[in-house]
């Protein structure tokens, strides 16, 4: 049974399993960012919005520390994927409606 559980995907965007995350912690990861760098968990399209808290819980459990002590990743713009053209929109491109 424990083997099967280890294959559960924690980061669904980048398909990172519980086992890989536990290994990263064993290798010295102590923050959500450390796990991300070693496994790519949280580097996908959702940017850890679904898995970051689960990763933090796993770190807390593995290191036997309270979850409040686990450092989360930095939150930055954009909140969700944004097309690049939204940043380069030129005024003359506005279509006037009649």
């Amino acid at each position: 049974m424990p083997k099967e559980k280890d294959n559960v995907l924690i980061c669904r965007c980048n398909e990172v399993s519980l086992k890989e995350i536990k290994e990263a912690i064993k290798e010295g990861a102590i923050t959500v960012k450390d796990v991300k760098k070693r496994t790519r968990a949280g580097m996908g399209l959702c940017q850890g919005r679904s898995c970051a808290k689960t990763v933090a819980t796993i770190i807390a459990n593995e290191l036997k520390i309270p979850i409040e002590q686990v450092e989360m990743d930095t939150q930055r713009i954009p909140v969700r994927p944004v097309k690049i053209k939204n940043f380069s929109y030129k005024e003359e491109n506005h279509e006037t409606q009649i």
Partner: protein
Amino acid sequence: MKHKYDVLVIGAGIIGSAIAYFLSKEKMKVAVFEKENIGAGASNACGGIVFLQSKNPGISLKLAVESIYILEKLKHEFERDIEYEQKGGLVIINSETEKKAFSKKVKEHQASGLEIQMLDTEETLKIEPFLSREILGSTYCKLDGSINPIALTLAFAETAIKNGIDFYPSTEIENFIYENSRIIGIISNKQEKFFADKIVLATGIYSNQLLSKINIQLPIKPRRGQVIVSEPIAPLLNHALLSGRYLAAKLFPEILEDLTNPLNQMGIGLVFEQAKSGNLLIGSTREFVGENKETTFQGIEYILKHAISIIPSLEDINIIRTFSGLRPYTVDGLPIISKLIPYDNLIIAAGHEGDGITLSAITGKLIKQMVLEEKLNDNIEELDYNRFL
């Protein structure tokens, strides 16, 4: 608690990790101290371009050539995939002023033996069909490429740990320990004492905090670079790219002096590569904003405007993240790899600004030679800190 080592390395960014790796292959007892964890600062908040044509002929280019030679070998030695690929690099020319400046630079590079050539618009579009027809050409160097800086930092550090060095994460240096005005060790913030014959500082922008304890100050200051990450996409470009503006900031700043241009105010230049994962890394700004690591809407907006003027097909691609890193800038654009006289057992390797990833390997090797008091690979007098005295 008392610990005795041969060498203490302060900092586990790309430079400290590379140094630890080279020292770990010698029969020496080495400890590495890091206030956070491996690659917590600028080393993992950057793009991964590894370029030769961005270096001035002379010591910079010479060290970069040696460094990529080592990286190419390490690629096969490390267990972790460092994603190093010499896929060729282009510097895109966008104005007549840039064209003039880069034609001259290409001749200097060719004279110093670097294989580099100037391509016109048609020749450039032939190898990179997604670029804008408005560009005026490019300079091409086949040895340029890119690497995964996170993987490289981890690979250096992990291999060093596997080879037996002691790694102390979340540990800061509170003070040095002296004996007859000589430094013989350090005290950590956990009040532990560590003694060693040699101490190496690889402390990037934080160097002066530590050096203030021994009344040395170096002209290193943080320069922020903002970077954007896109969603993973199918291969878009065949090469790693810089825009002329990006390099001009380093090689001929005089052509960017017009501060009415907002791109110049924020030091915007394009640095563009596609990681192995398919994500595009699009940078960057060059700003002096102290230790502020935030990303700004304006910075992101101007980088993307500049990027789209060179690669119009970026339009419909989504960005998913932005980040920024504080590069250790020095006034003359050269790193400091030097003994900190009068303390002749104290060595520093810092101030690489945007060249830390490229120069990591050769820096690690040179510091190992300094520590072992071997003959150095290169004459690095130009990198001595006494140039600022």
